[in-house]
């Protein structure tokens, strides 16, 4: 009972410290006489502004029929464009329109630029994670191979990648390799991130495999399994379970590192943040929002991996 009271006390202390930090942030922003404009942020996450429906060509409005809820646009060359789904007609019958002019608007929500950045970060991280795992697995296996060529190649790769900054690698991938192989931004970004993270994953997987008792391989081989089957069915499942915590750390790093692809003009969460700052002049709010969104991504990933770890611990 006494122990529990102590625990409560410590928890209260924790809450007090957190409130103190929060107040510190608030007070320091006050002293900067910064005008907080949080109301400018939500529209960049999700917007309920009506969407414009635009004319696809030059022409004129043949009819606006509120009864049948139908707008017909006639082009100079005889094409027609019919709008039936709209909420408010902007154009009137007989108006001349040019390509891109707003004919009508439709209500509804759409994602703001920060949300699109979040989607891009998610996409680039997910694709890079899959490739990084594949690269890491094979490099890790090559690292412990009996074949010296495979071993030297993998060591060279790991040392080169771990010894140079990711930012520099992204530039090299985009400007050099990207030009040689004619890669688009997204591919170059994903490739740089995968190759970078793969080197770290390779070392994690190598350590994981080497931590499995050699008797496991011997038992599997003595049952007639070849090396590959023994790896796939006996060694790797155990190594995977053992390396899950460091892998989780690496995956979280990958999500955070993906912010660097903004330097090659991929509109990820970070670049979207920078763009929104320049249009809202609300840098504090935007960067806090971006930080929280990164936290949401990494936090959910941690949570999923913790669940997985729990499920795998059934055999402990």
């Amino acid at each position, binding site marked *: 009972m006494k122990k529990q009271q102590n625990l409560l006390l410590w928890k209260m202390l924790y809450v007090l410290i957190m409130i103190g930090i929060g107040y510190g942030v608030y007070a320091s922003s006050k002293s900067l006489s910064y005008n907080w404009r949080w109301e400018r942020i939500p529209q960049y996450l999700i917007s309920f502004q009506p969407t414009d429906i635009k004319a696809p060509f030059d022409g004129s409005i043949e009819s606006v029929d509120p009864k049948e809820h139908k707008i017909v646009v006639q082009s100079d060359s005889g094409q027609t464009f019919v709008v039936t789904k709209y909420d408010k007609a902007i154009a009137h019958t007989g108006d001349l329109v040019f390509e891109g002019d707003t004919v009508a608007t439709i209500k509804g929500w759409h994602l703001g630029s920060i949300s699109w950045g979040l989607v891009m970060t998610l996409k680039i991280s997910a694709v890079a994670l899959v490739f990084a795992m594949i690269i890491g697995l094979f490099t890790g296996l090559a690292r412990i191979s009996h074949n010296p060529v495979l071993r030297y190649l993998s060591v060279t790769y790991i040392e080169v990648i771990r010894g140079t900054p990711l930012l520099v690698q992204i530039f090299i991938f985009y400007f050099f390799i990207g030009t040689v192989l004619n890669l688009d931004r997204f591919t170059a970004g994903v490739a740089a991130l995968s190759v970078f993270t793969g080197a770290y994953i390779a070392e994690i997987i190598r350590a994981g495999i080497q931590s499995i008792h050699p008797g496991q391989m011997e038992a599997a081989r003595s*049952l*007639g399994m070849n090396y590959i089957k023994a790896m796939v*069915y006996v060694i790797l499942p155990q190594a995977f379970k053992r390396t899950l915590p460091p892998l989780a750390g690496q995956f979280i790093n990958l999500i955070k590192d993906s912010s660097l692809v903004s330097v090659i003009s991929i509109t990820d969460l970070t670049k979207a943040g920078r763009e929104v700052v320049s249009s809202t002049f609300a840098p504090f709010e935007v960067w806090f929002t971006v930080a929280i969104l990164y936290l949401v991504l990494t936090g959910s990933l941690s949570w999923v991996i913790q669940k997985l770890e729990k499920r795998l611990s059934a*055999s402990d």
Partner: protein
Amino acid sequence: MTNPILKDSIIVADSVDKIYPNGCHALKKVSLNIKKGEVVVIIGPSGSGKSTFLRTLNQLETISDGTIHIDDINLTHKETNINKVREEVGMVFQSFNLFPHKTALGNVMLSPMKVLKKSAKEAEAEAKDLMAKVGLADRMNNYPSHLSGGQQQRVAIARALAMSPKIMLFDEPTSALDPEMVGEVLDVMKSLAGGGMTMVVVTHEMGFAREVADRVVFMEDGELVFEETPDRFFESDNQRLQRFLGQVL
């Protein structure tokens, strides 16, 4: 097979030499023939090469010189598929080496499914039979970490038997067990021997050697010193054997 005496031998080891890269000479011209259905127990002090020799029989240990034939297949021949040979040679380890991420039943089923390509249903039915045979019908869904040492070793025996091997190798199967669990493992091995399985057993259990073995082999310093039927073996006046037996008995 040119020599008619070796015709009914299932294991023929001829002048097997093993030298480790560090120069340690672990096996020196070891020759041993084992007939089908024979139970051969190998004893000797630690470091005598008895485990190394056993492990050469399924090539977990490669040899430096000599030849080993299993069922007329030359193990060291270039074209021999060692995985095929290993399907026929079961092995039980001192430290069990069960797969910790699989249940007891999963351990027994894995190789028949992945190597022999049996269906899950067939493998499971056979695995259940084997688990019953080693007296663990009620422990099939336990993970190895939830089994005692004796139970784990019996699962390991069932796992090796699931491949329907012609030969079973036992590498000090009871050495890592608490004394009260030795009996249950030896009982399984005895019933296996009674069923006509060819067995090569490295052990310190002299009682098992005396009771079950058809032949007992004494190894020391990488040499096969002496082999005899159990009766004559334990009454032999070979000096090196006497010295060893004096230490363990």
